């Protein structure tokens, strides 16, 4: 059954490959600097390599999708997202898989009656608006600079042409590598805890089920690149604005820089030190970045009026339609999956407000007095719990979210054998032995498990510095996902 459910992720992988290669190689192919066939081969190989070599560090995306707490739900959301992207791709639109996925997750959240994390949604929406704007200005400046260099460089036309080609392939391969590394979580993230594969033994070599899963996921992206990306590549490369090789290169460079700005912790810290505004570290759409960069270059060339605004309008329209239609499709498909195919698409989450929860919430500086009358109460679903807290009128949205997080009834069963399913690289041997010491213990609330972990010297020392604290939070999120009962 799990193999069938994996198909949802693989369809998503296919559409991811079909769509997003255009962001990387569209301009190179459009300016005829790289042959379509070369682009497809380089992109698919780089994506597989990126997923296999760097794809393990995908905690964030796993956590994000992990909110969907039933494999049936994850399958349906992936399928709805994939179908939306395929449908939009077929219509020749340049769509963002991130947008479709966010739409799909919102669809599940609404269907399951869960709370929508408005804060992170606002952050993502903000990033969707800011990222093309940054790309616009960055591409404008980069183009001006490189163009001046190109004119003054006194370089042979043929040598320059060759250098451009080389730069396209190298930057393109690098971008595809990062693309594979960053996106593999979207494809297989939700399946890590219901992996249909078993460890494979080839003579003395053992290939973990986790690696096989990542490999299969990356193959689905590669297949998407090879069989479905041609049309979108042509949209990016030819229809919006005819690009010169220099312009194409600036697009790829801008894309790499902007993606880094929104995903690098180091850059965020640097901006903080320089007292500059920071950017949220959220998944952004590379398609939007590309479009922003293209318009920036158009303006830098003084050719703003040459931009095909008809096509641009279609693209912006696709940005709005994609998340909405993915959300609606996901909502209705979840209904069918649950009622027609009798699959569990959500595990209802229950909440309790016993004294230990109130005490723990109090430690965070939240006034617990209004909670006292509700002591001992159990809520059968999120909507109930949230409405009750809202009716108290004493807490803002953030505080309600924190309280609910602590009230959530989980069943965290520490099973150290499960550690083999994940990438051991994330933990040191001391940390692993501390976790193994908790084998067999059961926790009703996730924070109890966290407190238990922090009792050990290894983890308590680690959280004393900000970087260690951040890493611990990631490790903790992963362990919760691993040991949480409904994921069985």
């Amino acid at each position, binding site marked *: 059954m799990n193999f069938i459910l994996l198909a949802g992720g693989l369809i998503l992988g296919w559409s991811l490959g079909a769509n997003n290669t255009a962001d990387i190689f569209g301009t190179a192919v459009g300016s005829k600097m790289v042959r379509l066939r070369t682009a497809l081969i380089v992109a698919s190989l780089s994506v597989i390599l990126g997923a296999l070599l760097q794809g393990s560090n995908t905690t964030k995306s796993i956590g994000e999708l992990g909110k969907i707490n039933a494999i049936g739900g994850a399958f349906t959301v992936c399928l709805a997202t994939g179908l939306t992207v395929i449908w939009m791709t077929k219509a020749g639109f340049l769509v963002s898989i991130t947008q479709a996925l966010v739409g799909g997750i919102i669809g599940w959240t609404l269907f399951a009656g869960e709370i929508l994390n408005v804060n992170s949604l606002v952050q993502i929406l903000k990033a969707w608006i800011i990222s093309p704007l940054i790309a616009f200005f960055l591409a404008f400046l980069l183009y001006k600079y490189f163009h001046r260099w190109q004119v003054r460089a*006194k370089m042979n036309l*043929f040598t320059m042409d060759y250098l451009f080609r*080389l730069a396209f392939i190298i930057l393109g391969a690098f971008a595809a590598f990062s693309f594979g590394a960053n996106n593999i979580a979207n494809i297989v993230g939700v399946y890590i805890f219901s992996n249909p594969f078993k460890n494979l033994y080839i003579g003395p070599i053992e290939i973990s089920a986790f690696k096989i899963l990542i490999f299969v996921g990356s193959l689905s992206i590669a297949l998407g690149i090879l069989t479905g990306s041609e049309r979108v590549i042509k949209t990016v490369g030819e229809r919006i604005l005819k690009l010169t090789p220099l312009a194409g290169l600036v697009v790829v460079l801008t894309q790499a820089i902007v993606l880094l700005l929104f995903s690098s912790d180091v850059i965020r810290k640097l901006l903080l030190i320089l007292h500059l505004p920071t950017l949220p570290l959220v998944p952004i759409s590379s398609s939007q970045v590309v479009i922003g960069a293209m318009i920036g270059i158009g303006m830098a*060339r003084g050719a703003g009026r040459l931009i095909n605004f008809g096509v641009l309008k279609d693209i912006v329209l696709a940005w709005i339609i994609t998340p909405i239609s993915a959300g609606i499709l996901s909502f209705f498909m979840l209904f069918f999956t649950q009622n027609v195919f009798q699959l569990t698409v959500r595990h209802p989450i229950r909440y309790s407000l016993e004294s230990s929860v109130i005490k723990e919430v109090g430690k965070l500086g939240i006034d617990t007095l209004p909670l006292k009358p509700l002591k001992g109460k159990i809520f059968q679903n999120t909507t109930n719990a949230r409405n009750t807290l809202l009716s108290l009128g004493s807490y803002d949205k953030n505080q309600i979210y924190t309280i609910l997080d602590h009230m959530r009834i989980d069943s965290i069963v520490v099973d150290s054998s499960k550690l083999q399913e994940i990438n051991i690289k994330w933990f040191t041997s001391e940390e692993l032995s501390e976790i193994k010491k908790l084998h067999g213990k059961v926790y009703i609330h996730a924070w109890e498990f966290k407190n238990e972990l922090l009792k050990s010297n290894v983890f308590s020392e680690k959280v004393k510095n900000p970087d260690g604290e951040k890493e611990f939070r990631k490790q903790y999120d992963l362990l919760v996902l691993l040991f949480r009962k409904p994921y069985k």
Partner: protein
Amino acid sequence: MLSVWKKTKELEGKIDAYLDFFIEASLNFKEGLLMYLKNYCEKFEEKVKKVDELESRGDSLRREIENVIYMELLIPESRGDVLGIIENADSVLNSMSQVMIEFDIQRPTIPESLKEPFELLIENTVFSVQEMVSAIRMYFKNIQEVRNHIKSVMHFEHECDEIGNEIKRKIFLDTTIEPCCKIQLSNFISMVQLVSDKAEDVCDRLSIYVIKRIA
């Protein structure tokens, strides 16, 4: 990628070889016509054959270059412009060959008094062709230098116009020349002038392509 580098370098070599034909043809054109003026008929005929051969070799190399650029997707950004330059430049080579052939067929009699200005016309024509070749080479190697060579071509073309018109005036004022010969000589002067005119046409296009690359 190595094969692309190899093909790009091969193309560069072919374009260079093609432009070398112009230099060689222009030198033979000059020598041939000077021989004609000095009545060294055998040497002149040799040069006619040489220019004609260079013209046909130039044609086949031009076709080869066009095929390579299109088939191998080389220099995609500038290929239209490069083809435009090459095709236009070809007409300069054709004109030089045509002038030589016509001299060979019609054997016009050049009056002694016109030989010196005629030599001057030939020299300026050859300079215009050679400067055109330099302008084209610079288009590939150092775009900032193209403008200087284009200016030189324009200068020599203007000189050719002035000298040619002066010769024509002298022809029609000379009462010792038969009217039919006057017409014939005037046509020959126009044919030689056409070579520098074509070189100027190539440079006019070239200046647009330069703006395209710099803008």
